[in-house]
Protein backbone atom coordinates (compact mmCIF):
# COMPACT_ATOMS: atom_id res chain seq x y z
CA UNK A 1 0.00 0.00 0.00
CA UNK A 2 1.74 3.15 -1.17
CA UNK A 3 0.27 5.54 1.38
CA UNK A 4 1.52 3.96 4.61
CA UNK A 5 4.97 3.15 3.30
CA UNK A 6 5.59 6.60 1.90
CA UNK A 7 4.23 8.00 5.11
CA UNK A 8 6.58 5.72 7.00
CA UNK A 9 9.51 6.83 4.87
CA UNK A 10 8.66 10.44 5.57
CA UNK A 11 8.51 9.68 9.30
CA UNK A 12 11.85 7.97 9.37
CA UNK A 13 13.69 10.94 8.01
CA UNK A 14 12.70 13.69 10.40
CA UNK A 15 12.52 11.67 13.60
CA UNK A 16 15.80 9.98 12.80
CA UNK A 17 17.44 13.32 12.10
CA UNK A 18 16.25 14.81 15.38
CA UNK A 19 17.36 11.67 17.20
CA UNK A 20 20.82 11.75 15.71
CA UNK A 21 21.11 15.41 16.66
CA UNK A 22 19.98 14.62 20.19
CA UNK A 23 22.49 11.79 20.46
CA UNK A 24 25.13 14.29 19.46
CA UNK A 25 23.80 16.68 22.10
CA UNK A 26 23.96 13.98 24.76
CA UNK A 27 27.50 12.94 23.94
CA UNK A 28 29.01 16.36 23.42
CA UNK A 29 29.88 16.93 27.11
CA UNK A 30 31.13 13.34 27.30
CA UNK A 31 33.44 14.07 24.39
CA UNK A 32 34.68 17.18 26.14
CA UNK A 33 35.26 15.26 29.37
CA UNK A 34 37.11 12.56 27.47
CA UNK A 35 39.37 14.98 25.66
CA UNK A 36 40.30 16.78 28.85
CA UNK A 37 40.96 13.48 30.60
CA UNK A 38 44.03 13.23 28.39
CA UNK A 39 45.06 16.81 29.01
CA UNK A 40 48.21 17.39 30.98
CA UNK A 41 46.86 20.44 32.77
CA UNK A 42 44.72 19.80 35.85
CA UNK A 43 42.42 22.50 34.56
CA UNK A 44 39.97 22.45 31.67
CA UNK A 45 41.27 25.70 30.28
CA UNK A 46 43.53 24.89 27.39
CA UNK A 47 45.29 21.93 25.89
CA UNK A 48 48.78 21.56 27.29
CA UNK A 49 49.71 18.15 26.03
CA UNK A 50 48.69 14.53 25.92
CA UNK A 51 49.10 12.30 28.94
CA UNK A 52 47.76 9.08 30.38
CA UNK A 53 48.72 10.14 33.90
CA UNK A 54 45.20 10.87 35.02
CA UNK A 55 44.17 7.35 34.15
CA UNK A 56 47.06 5.91 36.16
CA UNK A 57 46.14 8.20 38.98
CA UNK A 58 42.54 7.09 38.88
CA UNK A 59 43.37 3.39 38.83
CA UNK A 60 45.69 3.74 41.79
CA UNK A 61 43.41 5.95 43.86
CA UNK A 62 41.88 3.62 46.42
CA UNK A 63 39.62 6.37 47.77
CA UNK A 64 37.87 6.81 44.45
CA UNK A 65 37.75 3.10 43.73
CA UNK A 66 36.19 2.29 47.08
CA UNK A 67 33.76 5.17 46.65
CA UNK A 68 32.83 3.74 43.27
CA UNK A 69 32.38 0.32 44.82
CA UNK A 70 30.18 1.75 47.56
CA UNK A 71 28.06 3.67 45.06
CA UNK A 72 27.57 0.63 42.84
CA UNK A 73 26.69 -1.53 45.83
CA UNK A 74 24.11 0.98 47.03
CA UNK A 75 22.64 1.47 43.57
CA UNK A 76 22.36 -2.23 42.75
CA UNK A 77 20.79 -3.12 46.10
CA UNK A 78 18.45 -0.17 46.14
CA UNK A 79 17.30 -0.67 42.55
CA UNK A 80 16.93 -4.40 43.07
CA UNK A 81 14.67 -3.96 46.05
CA UNK A 82 12.85 -1.04 44.46
CA UNK A 83 12.18 -2.96 41.24
CA UNK A 84 10.25 -5.58 43.16
CA UNK A 85 8.48 -3.30 45.61
CA UNK A 86 7.73 -0.63 43.02
CA UNK A 87 6.29 -3.02 40.45
CA UNK A 88 4.12 -4.72 43.04
CA UNK A 89 2.91 -1.38 44.26
CA UNK A 90 2.10 -0.11 40.78
CA UNK A 91 0.16 -3.28 39.97
CA UNK A 92 -1.68 -3.10 43.27
CA UNK A 93 -2.61 0.55 42.75
CA UNK A 94 -3.90 -0.11 39.26
CA UNK A 95 -6.09 -2.98 40.35
CA UNK A 96 -7.79 -2.13 43.52
CA UNK A 97 -9.90 0.62 44.84
CA UNK A 98 -9.83 1.02 48.59
CA UNK A 99 -10.41 3.71 51.16
CA UNK A 100 -7.29 5.82 51.38
CA UNK A 101 -6.12 4.93 47.90
CA UNK A 102 -5.71 8.59 47.03
CA UNK A 103 -3.54 9.06 50.06
CA UNK A 104 -1.43 6.01 49.25
CA UNK A 105 -1.02 7.21 45.69
CA UNK A 106 -0.05 10.66 46.89
CA UNK A 107 2.55 9.21 49.22
CA UNK A 108 4.00 7.18 46.38
CA UNK A 109 4.60 10.40 44.46
CA UNK A 110 6.05 12.19 47.46
CA UNK A 111 9.69 11.12 46.97
CA UNK A 112 9.70 12.85 43.61
CA UNK A 113 8.54 16.14 45.08
CA UNK A 114 10.34 16.52 48.37
CA UNK A 115 13.48 18.63 48.14
CA UNK A 116 16.50 16.38 48.59
CA UNK A 117 17.96 18.35 51.46
CA UNK A 118 14.75 18.23 53.46
CA UNK A 119 14.30 14.49 53.16
CA UNK A 120 18.01 13.96 53.80
CA UNK A 121 17.94 15.89 57.06
CA UNK A 122 14.64 14.41 58.14
CA UNK A 123 15.71 10.84 57.39
CA UNK A 124 18.88 11.28 59.40
CA UNK A 125 16.96 12.78 62.31
CA UNK A 126 14.52 9.88 62.13
CA UNK A 127 17.30 7.32 62.04
CA UNK A 128 19.33 8.91 64.78
CA UNK A 129 16.50 9.79 67.09
CA UNK A 130 14.13 6.90 66.51
CA UNK A 131 15.36 3.94 64.51
CA UNK A 132 18.77 3.46 66.03
CA UNK A 133 17.78 3.79 69.69
CA UNK A 134 14.66 1.63 69.16
CA UNK A 135 16.63 -1.13 67.54
CA UNK A 136 19.03 -1.12 70.45
CA UNK A 137 21.94 -0.25 68.25
CA UNK A 138 21.33 -3.08 65.79
CA UNK A 139 20.72 -0.59 63.05
CA UNK A 140 23.67 1.71 62.55
CA UNK A 141 24.43 4.39 60.05
CA UNK A 142 26.18 2.51 57.32
CA UNK A 143 25.97 1.56 53.70
CA UNK A 144 22.71 -0.17 54.60
CA UNK A 145 21.04 3.02 55.76
CA UNK A 146 21.97 4.67 52.48
CA UNK A 147 20.36 1.76 50.63
CA UNK A 148 17.24 2.04 52.77
CA UNK A 149 16.93 5.76 52.05
CA UNK A 150 17.58 5.26 48.33
CA UNK A 151 14.93 2.56 48.01
CA UNK A 152 12.37 5.20 48.90
CA UNK A 153 12.87 7.31 45.81
CA UNK A 154 13.90 4.42 43.57
CA UNK A 155 10.62 2.64 44.11
CA UNK A 156 8.71 5.83 43.45
CA UNK A 157 10.37 6.14 40.05
CA UNK A 158 9.88 2.49 39.16
CA UNK A 159 6.23 2.71 40.19
CA UNK A 160 5.76 5.84 38.10
CA UNK A 161 7.12 4.33 34.92
CA UNK A 162 5.39 0.98 35.39
CA UNK A 163 2.03 2.61 36.11
CA UNK A 164 2.11 4.58 32.86
CA UNK A 165 2.62 1.31 31.07
CA UNK A 166 -0.16 -0.39 33.00
CA UNK A 167 -2.76 2.09 31.85
CA UNK A 168 -2.13 1.07 28.26
CA UNK A 169 -2.18 -2.63 28.94
CA UNK A 170 -4.83 -4.98 27.73
CA UNK A 171 -6.67 -5.90 30.93
CA UNK A 172 -8.14 -9.02 29.48
CA UNK A 173 -4.88 -10.90 29.05
CA UNK A 174 -4.61 -11.70 32.73
CA UNK A 175 -8.26 -12.58 32.98
CA UNK A 176 -7.83 -14.94 30.07
CA UNK A 177 -4.94 -16.64 31.80
CA UNK A 178 -6.98 -17.02 34.96
CA UNK A 179 -9.86 -18.44 32.95
CA UNK A 180 -7.54 -21.00 31.46
CA UNK A 181 -6.71 -22.25 34.95
CA UNK A 182 -3.61 -20.33 35.86
CA UNK A 183 -3.11 -19.40 39.48
CA UNK A 184 -2.91 -15.67 40.15
CA UNK A 185 0.83 -16.10 40.71
CA UNK A 186 1.33 -17.82 37.38
CA UNK A 187 -0.79 -15.22 35.61
CA UNK A 188 1.29 -12.52 37.17
CA UNK A 189 4.67 -14.01 36.36
CA UNK A 190 4.00 -15.40 32.93
CA UNK A 191 1.56 -12.90 31.51
CA UNK A 192 1.78 -9.57 33.27
CA UNK A 193 5.47 -9.41 34.04
CA UNK A 194 6.73 -9.88 30.48
CA UNK A 195 4.31 -7.16 29.35
CA UNK A 196 5.66 -4.82 31.98
CA UNK A 197 9.32 -5.67 31.45
CA UNK A 198 10.20 -2.68 29.22
CA UNK A 199 8.72 -0.32 31.77
CA UNK A 200 10.42 -2.06 34.67
CA UNK A 201 13.73 -1.84 32.88
CA UNK A 202 13.19 1.82 32.03
CA UNK A 203 12.29 2.55 35.62
CA UNK A 204 15.29 0.65 36.90
CA UNK A 205 17.64 2.51 34.59
CA UNK A 206 16.19 5.78 35.81
CA UNK A 207 16.43 4.77 39.45
CA UNK A 208 19.97 3.45 39.03
CA UNK A 209 21.20 6.69 37.54
CA UNK A 210 19.51 8.70 40.27
CA UNK A 211 20.97 6.54 43.00
CA UNK A 212 24.47 6.76 41.58
CA UNK A 213 24.21 10.51 41.37
CA UNK A 214 22.55 11.26 44.70
CA UNK A 215 24.69 13.35 46.94
CA UNK A 216 22.64 14.90 49.72
CA UNK A 217 20.73 11.86 50.94
CA UNK A 218 23.84 9.70 50.94
CA UNK A 219 25.83 12.43 52.71
CA UNK A 220 23.41 12.48 55.57
CA UNK A 221 22.62 8.80 55.97
CA UNK A 222 26.12 7.43 55.45
CA UNK A 223 28.17 6.08 58.28
CA UNK A 224 30.74 3.48 59.17
CA UNK A 225 33.19 4.68 56.57
CA UNK A 226 30.73 4.44 53.72
CA UNK A 227 31.59 6.98 51.09
CA UNK A 228 29.71 7.15 47.84
CA UNK A 229 31.11 8.52 44.64
CA UNK A 230 29.21 11.85 44.69
CA UNK A 231 30.31 12.38 48.29
CA UNK A 232 33.90 11.86 47.27
CA UNK A 233 33.66 14.08 44.20
CA UNK A 234 31.87 16.94 45.94
CA UNK A 235 34.41 16.84 48.73
CA UNK A 236 37.16 17.41 46.20
CA UNK A 237 35.63 20.57 44.78
CA UNK A 238 37.34 22.64 47.42
CA UNK A 239 40.77 21.77 46.12
CA UNK A 240 39.72 21.33 42.55
CA UNK A 241 38.21 18.39 40.74
CA UNK A 242 41.09 17.03 38.72
CA UNK A 243 40.92 15.20 35.39
CA UNK A 244 41.29 11.86 37.15
CA UNK A 245 37.56 12.21 37.80
CA UNK A 246 37.12 12.73 34.06
CA UNK A 247 39.05 9.52 33.57
CA UNK A 248 36.69 7.84 36.03
CA UNK A 249 33.67 8.99 34.04
CA UNK A 250 35.10 7.82 30.75
CA UNK A 251 35.96 4.41 32.19
CA UNK A 252 32.50 4.14 33.78
CA UNK A 253 30.70 4.93 30.55
CA UNK A 254 32.84 2.63 28.48
CA UNK A 255 32.58 -0.11 31.10
CA UNK A 256 28.82 0.04 31.51
CA UNK A 257 28.28 0.51 27.79
CA UNK A 258 30.30 -2.62 27.17
CA UNK A 259 28.50 -4.53 29.93
CA UNK A 260 25.11 -3.59 28.50
CA UNK A 261 26.22 -4.53 25.01
CA UNK A 262 27.30 -7.96 26.19
CA UNK A 263 24.09 -8.45 28.20
CA UNK A 264 21.99 -7.44 25.21
CA UNK A 265 23.94 -9.74 22.93
CA UNK A 266 23.44 -12.69 25.26
CA UNK A 267 19.75 -11.93 25.56
CA UNK A 268 19.41 -11.61 21.81
CA UNK A 269 21.20 -14.84 21.13
CA UNK A 270 19.13 -16.76 23.68
CA UNK A 271 16.00 -15.30 22.13
CA UNK A 272 17.13 -16.40 18.66
CA UNK A 273 17.78 -19.88 20.00
CA UNK A 274 14.34 -20.02 21.54
CA UNK A 275 12.69 -18.99 18.30
CA UNK A 276 14.52 -21.62 16.28
Amino acid at each position, binding site marked *: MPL*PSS*QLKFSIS*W*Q*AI*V*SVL*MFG*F*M*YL*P*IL*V*LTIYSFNQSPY*SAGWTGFTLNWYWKFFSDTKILSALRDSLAVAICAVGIAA*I*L*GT*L*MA*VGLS*RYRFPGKGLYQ*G*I*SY*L*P*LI*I*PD*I*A*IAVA*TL*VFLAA*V*AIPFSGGLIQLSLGTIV*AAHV*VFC*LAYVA*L*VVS*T*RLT*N*LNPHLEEAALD*LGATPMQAFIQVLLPELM*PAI*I*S*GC*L*LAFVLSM*DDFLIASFTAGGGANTLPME*IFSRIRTGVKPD*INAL*SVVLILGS*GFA*FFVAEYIRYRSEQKRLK
Partner: protein
Amino acid sequence: MSQASPPISREAPRKQPAALARLLEPLALLGPAGIWLALLLVIPTLLIFQLSLVPGIRPGDVVNPSGLDNYVQIFQPLYLQVLGRSLFFAAGTTLICLVLGFPVAYWIALLVPKRWRNLTLIGFVLPLWTSSLLRSYAWITILRPTGVLNTVLTSFGLPALDILNRDAAVLVGMSYSLLPYMVLILYASLEKLDTRLLEAAADLGATPKQAFWQVTVPQTLPGIAAGCLLVFITGLGDFVDPELLGGASSMTAARLIYNQFLGATQNWGFGSALSMLLILTVSIAIALLLKYGDRNASGV
Protein backbone atom coordinates in the same frame (compact mmCIF):
# COMPACT_ATOMS: atom_id res chain seq x y z
CA MET B 1 -11.17 -25.32 23.33
CA SER B 2 -14.92 -25.45 23.80
CA GLN B 3 -16.98 -24.18 20.93
CA ALA B 4 -20.69 -23.61 21.12
CA SER B 5 -21.00 -24.28 24.82
CA PRO B 6 -21.89 -21.71 27.44
CA PRO B 7 -18.96 -19.57 28.63
CA ILE B 8 -16.85 -21.28 31.24
CA SER B 9 -17.79 -19.88 34.57
CA ARG B 10 -14.94 -18.47 36.61
CA GLU B 11 -15.91 -20.34 39.67
CA ALA B 12 -15.50 -23.79 38.15
CA PRO B 13 -11.77 -24.23 37.33
CA ARG B 14 -10.54 -21.84 40.03
CA LYS B 15 -10.91 -22.41 43.71
CA GLN B 16 -12.92 -19.60 45.18
CA PRO B 17 -10.41 -18.03 47.53
CA ALA B 18 -11.41 -17.50 51.13
CA ALA B 19 -12.04 -13.95 52.27
CA LEU B 20 -8.71 -13.81 54.07
CA ALA B 21 -6.86 -15.17 51.07
CA ARG B 22 -8.50 -12.57 48.89
CA LEU B 23 -7.08 -9.91 51.16
CA LEU B 24 -3.67 -11.49 50.82
CA GLU B 25 -3.18 -10.46 47.24
CA PRO B 26 -3.55 -6.69 47.62
CA LEU B 27 -1.61 -6.90 50.87
CA ALA B 28 1.24 -8.69 49.18
CA LEU B 29 1.27 -6.13 46.42
CA LEU B 30 0.86 -2.95 48.39
CA GLY B 31 2.13 -3.95 51.78
CA PRO B 32 5.93 -4.08 51.49
CA ALA B 33 6.22 -0.81 49.64
CA GLY B 34 3.72 0.74 51.98
CA ILE B 35 5.66 -0.18 55.07
CA TRP B 36 8.95 0.98 53.62
CA LEU B 37 7.46 4.31 52.61
CA ALA B 38 5.68 4.71 55.92
CA LEU B 39 8.90 4.34 57.87
CA LEU B 40 11.38 6.14 55.70
CA LEU B 41 9.19 8.68 53.99
CA VAL B 42 6.02 9.46 55.89
CA ILE B 43 7.61 9.79 59.29
CA PRO B 44 10.45 12.00 58.04
CA THR B 45 7.94 14.12 56.17
CA LEU B 46 5.88 14.54 59.31
CA LEU B 47 9.09 15.56 61.01
CA ILE B 48 9.65 18.23 58.39
CA PHE B 49 6.09 19.40 58.91
CA GLN B 50 6.65 19.56 62.63
CA LEU B 51 9.87 21.51 62.18
CA SER B 52 8.11 23.97 59.90
CA LEU B 53 5.74 24.95 62.66
CA VAL B 54 8.49 26.13 64.94
CA PRO B 55 9.88 29.55 64.16
CA GLY B 56 13.58 29.85 64.71
CA ILE B 57 14.20 26.26 65.62
CA ARG B 58 17.78 25.25 66.07
CA PRO B 59 18.78 21.67 65.46
CA GLY B 60 18.91 19.87 68.76
CA ASP B 61 16.16 22.02 70.22
CA VAL B 62 13.05 20.46 71.61
CA VAL B 63 10.35 20.80 69.02
CA ASN B 64 7.40 22.81 70.24
CA PRO B 65 5.13 23.57 67.32
CA SER B 66 3.90 27.04 67.88
CA GLY B 67 2.65 28.63 64.75
CA LEU B 68 2.72 29.54 61.14
CA ASP B 69 5.36 32.26 61.41
CA ASN B 70 7.67 30.41 59.10
CA TYR B 71 4.98 30.20 56.46
CA VAL B 72 4.08 33.86 56.75
CA GLN B 73 7.71 34.71 56.21
CA ILE B 74 7.64 33.04 52.85
CA PHE B 75 5.11 35.37 51.36
CA GLN B 76 7.42 38.26 50.69
CA PRO B 77 8.27 39.52 47.20
CA LEU B 78 11.85 38.35 47.65
CA TYR B 79 11.04 34.70 48.21
CA LEU B 80 8.18 34.65 45.76
CA GLN B 81 10.60 35.91 43.14
CA VAL B 82 12.93 33.05 43.94
CA LEU B 83 10.08 30.55 43.66
CA GLY B 84 9.06 32.13 40.39
CA ARG B 85 12.52 31.68 38.95
CA SER B 86 12.50 28.01 39.88
CA LEU B 87 9.12 27.55 38.22
CA PHE B 88 10.39 29.28 35.10
CA PHE B 89 13.46 27.08 34.81
CA ALA B 90 11.46 23.92 35.50
CA ALA B 91 8.70 24.78 33.05
CA GLY B 92 11.11 25.82 30.32
CA THR B 93 13.12 22.65 30.73
CA THR B 94 9.97 20.52 30.62
CA LEU B 95 8.87 22.09 27.37
CA ILE B 96 12.27 21.68 25.76
CA CYS B 97 12.56 18.07 26.93
CA LEU B 98 9.10 17.24 25.63
CA VAL B 99 9.67 18.77 22.22
CA LEU B 100 13.11 17.27 21.77
CA GLY B 101 12.45 14.01 23.58
CA PHE B 102 9.30 12.89 21.83
CA PRO B 103 10.90 12.35 18.42
CA VAL B 104 13.74 10.43 20.01
CA ALA B 105 11.40 8.19 22.02
CA TYR B 106 9.23 7.70 18.93
CA TRP B 107 12.21 6.78 16.81
CA ILE B 108 13.57 4.27 19.32
CA ALA B 109 10.21 2.75 20.15
CA LEU B 110 8.71 2.47 16.71
CA LEU B 111 11.27 3.00 13.99
CA VAL B 112 14.39 1.30 15.23
CA PRO B 113 14.47 -2.43 14.47
CA LYS B 114 13.61 -4.48 17.51
CA ARG B 115 17.05 -5.98 17.95
CA TRP B 116 18.68 -2.58 18.37
CA ARG B 117 16.01 -1.00 20.50
CA ASN B 118 17.38 -1.73 23.96
CA LEU B 119 20.89 -0.77 22.97
CA THR B 120 19.81 2.52 21.45
CA LEU B 121 17.78 3.36 24.51
CA ILE B 122 20.64 2.55 26.85
CA GLY B 123 23.00 4.43 24.59
CA PHE B 124 20.88 7.52 25.06
CA VAL B 125 20.84 7.21 28.83
CA LEU B 126 24.51 6.27 29.21
CA PRO B 127 25.84 9.87 29.47
CA LEU B 128 23.97 10.14 32.75
CA TRP B 129 26.53 7.76 34.23
CA THR B 130 28.76 10.76 34.80
CA SER B 131 28.36 12.80 37.94
CA SER B 132 25.92 15.68 37.46
CA LEU B 133 28.60 18.00 38.76
CA LEU B 134 31.00 16.92 36.03
CA ARG B 135 28.30 17.38 33.41
CA SER B 136 27.69 20.93 34.55
CA TYR B 137 31.40 21.68 34.51
CA ALA B 138 31.60 20.25 31.02
CA TRP B 139 28.86 22.65 29.92
CA ILE B 140 30.89 25.53 31.33
CA THR B 141 33.78 24.39 29.19
CA ILE B 142 31.49 24.22 26.17
CA LEU B 143 29.49 27.39 26.61
CA ARG B 144 32.01 29.87 27.95
CA PRO B 145 33.10 32.77 25.70
CA THR B 146 36.21 30.95 24.50
CA GLY B 147 34.71 27.51 24.87
CA VAL B 148 34.07 24.67 22.49
CA LEU B 149 30.85 26.07 21.05
CA ASN B 150 32.22 29.45 20.21
CA THR B 151 35.45 28.01 18.86
CA VAL B 152 33.42 25.95 16.41
CA LEU B 153 31.11 28.83 15.52
CA THR B 154 33.88 31.33 14.90
CA SER B 155 35.81 28.87 12.78
CA PHE B 156 32.80 28.84 10.47
CA GLY B 157 32.69 32.61 10.45
CA LEU B 158 29.56 32.71 12.64
CA PRO B 159 29.26 35.17 15.53
CA ALA B 160 30.18 33.95 19.00
CA LEU B 161 27.33 33.38 21.44
CA ASP B 162 27.40 34.76 24.97
CA ILE B 163 25.36 32.04 26.59
CA LEU B 164 27.17 31.19 29.78
CA ASN B 165 26.06 32.83 33.00
CA ARG B 166 22.67 33.56 31.54
CA ASP B 167 19.29 31.85 31.74
CA ALA B 168 19.80 30.15 28.37
CA ALA B 169 22.78 28.23 29.72
CA VAL B 170 20.72 27.01 32.66
CA LEU B 171 18.02 25.71 30.31
CA VAL B 172 20.65 23.93 28.23
CA GLY B 173 22.25 22.33 31.27
CA MET B 174 18.98 21.29 32.85
CA SER B 175 17.51 19.97 29.61
CA TYR B 176 20.63 17.93 29.11
CA SER B 177 20.27 16.22 32.45
CA LEU B 178 16.55 15.62 32.15
CA LEU B 179 16.11 14.69 28.50
CA PRO B 180 16.93 11.00 29.05
CA TYR B 181 14.28 10.81 31.77
CA MET B 182 11.66 12.14 29.38
CA VAL B 183 12.80 9.75 26.67
CA LEU B 184 12.75 6.75 29.03
CA ILE B 185 9.20 7.42 30.18
CA LEU B 186 7.87 8.26 26.74
CA TYR B 187 9.54 5.14 25.40
CA ALA B 188 7.73 2.94 27.92
CA SER B 189 4.48 4.43 26.69
CA LEU B 190 5.21 4.55 22.97
CA GLU B 191 6.53 1.02 22.80
CA LYS B 192 3.04 -0.20 23.51
CA LEU B 193 1.48 1.92 20.82
CA ASP B 194 -0.62 -0.17 18.48
CA THR B 195 0.81 0.69 15.08
CA ARG B 196 -2.19 -0.87 13.43
CA LEU B 197 -4.14 2.15 14.62
CA LEU B 198 -1.76 4.34 12.66
CA GLU B 199 -2.12 2.15 9.61
CA ALA B 200 -5.87 2.29 10.00
CA ALA B 201 -5.75 6.05 10.21
CA ALA B 202 -3.62 6.18 7.07
CA ASP B 203 -6.07 3.87 5.33
CA LEU B 204 -8.86 6.24 6.24
CA GLY B 205 -6.98 9.07 4.59
CA ALA B 206 -5.36 10.83 7.51
CA THR B 207 -2.19 12.78 6.89
CA PRO B 208 0.80 11.88 9.09
CA LYS B 209 0.17 15.08 11.02
CA GLN B 210 -3.46 14.19 11.68
CA ALA B 211 -2.53 10.65 12.62
CA PHE B 212 0.01 11.99 15.04
CA TRP B 213 -2.26 14.41 16.82
CA GLN B 214 -5.38 12.28 16.79
CA VAL B 215 -4.00 8.82 17.33
CA THR B 216 -0.45 8.84 18.72
CA VAL B 217 -0.74 11.68 21.21
CA PRO B 218 -4.00 10.61 22.87
CA GLN B 219 -2.71 7.06 23.18
CA THR B 220 0.49 8.18 24.85
CA LEU B 221 -1.03 10.89 27.01
CA PRO B 222 -0.33 9.06 30.30
CA GLY B 223 3.32 8.78 29.33
CA ILE B 224 3.50 12.41 28.27
CA ALA B 225 1.90 13.50 31.51
CA ALA B 226 4.20 11.31 33.60
CA GLY B 227 7.27 12.48 31.71
CA CYS B 228 6.39 16.15 32.03
CA LEU B 229 5.59 15.71 35.69
CA LEU B 230 8.86 13.97 36.36
CA VAL B 231 10.98 16.48 34.48
CA PHE B 232 9.16 19.44 36.01
CA ILE B 233 9.47 18.22 39.57
CA THR B 234 13.09 17.14 39.19
CA GLY B 235 13.82 20.47 37.55
CA LEU B 236 12.41 22.28 40.55
CA GLY B 237 14.93 20.50 42.74
CA ASP B 238 18.04 21.28 40.71
CA PHE B 239 20.20 23.96 42.23
CA VAL B 240 23.58 22.99 40.82
CA ASP B 241 22.88 23.98 37.22
CA PRO B 242 21.30 27.39 37.87
CA GLU B 243 24.17 28.28 40.16
CA LEU B 244 27.04 27.13 37.95
CA LEU B 245 25.57 28.16 34.63
CA GLY B 246 23.13 30.95 35.39
CA GLY B 247 25.27 33.81 36.54
CA ALA B 248 24.98 36.09 39.50
CA SER B 249 21.18 36.34 39.68
CA SER B 250 20.19 32.72 39.76
CA MET B 251 19.00 31.97 43.25
CA THR B 252 16.44 29.17 43.05
CA ALA B 253 13.97 27.75 45.55
CA ALA B 254 16.04 24.59 45.83
CA ARG B 255 19.14 26.59 46.68
CA LEU B 256 17.15 28.72 49.12
CA ILE B 257 15.96 25.63 50.97
CA TYR B 258 19.49 24.21 50.88
CA ASN B 259 20.81 27.45 52.38
CA GLN B 260 18.35 27.26 55.24
CA PHE B 261 19.50 23.81 56.24
CA LEU B 262 23.16 24.16 55.41
CA GLY B 263 23.83 27.86 55.62
CA ALA B 264 25.05 30.10 58.39
CA THR B 265 21.58 30.61 59.79
CA GLN B 266 20.75 26.88 60.15
CA ASN B 267 17.13 27.93 60.10
CA TRP B 268 15.62 24.48 59.78
CA GLY B 269 12.16 25.80 60.55
CA PHE B 270 12.06 28.15 57.60
CA GLY B 271 13.64 25.55 55.35
CA SER B 272 11.01 23.05 56.38
CA ALA B 273 8.23 25.53 55.74
CA LEU B 274 9.57 26.23 52.25
CA SER B 275 9.79 22.50 51.62
CA MET B 276 6.22 21.93 52.80
CA LEU B 277 4.98 24.71 50.56
CA LEU B 278 6.77 23.24 47.59
CA ILE B 279 5.40 19.80 48.37
CA LEU B 280 1.90 21.21 48.74
CA THR B 281 1.85 23.13 45.46
CA VAL B 282 3.24 20.26 43.47
CA SER B 283 0.92 17.77 45.15
CA ILE B 284 -2.09 19.85 44.22
CA ALA B 285 -0.87 20.00 40.64
CA ILE B 286 -0.41 16.24 40.57
CA ALA B 287 -3.80 15.63 42.14
CA LEU B 288 -5.44 17.75 39.45
CA LEU B 289 -3.48 15.93 36.79
CA LEU B 290 -4.49 12.55 38.14
CA LYS B 291 -8.14 13.56 38.28
CA TYR B 292 -7.98 14.75 34.70
CA GLY B 293 -6.13 11.59 33.71
CA ASP B 294 -8.69 9.40 35.45
CA ARG B 295 -11.58 11.08 33.73
CA ASN B 296 -9.76 10.74 30.44
CA ALA B 297 -8.98 7.09 31.01
CA SER B 298 -12.51 6.18 32.01
CA GLY B 299 -13.77 7.92 28.93
CA VAL B 300 -11.54 5.81 26.70
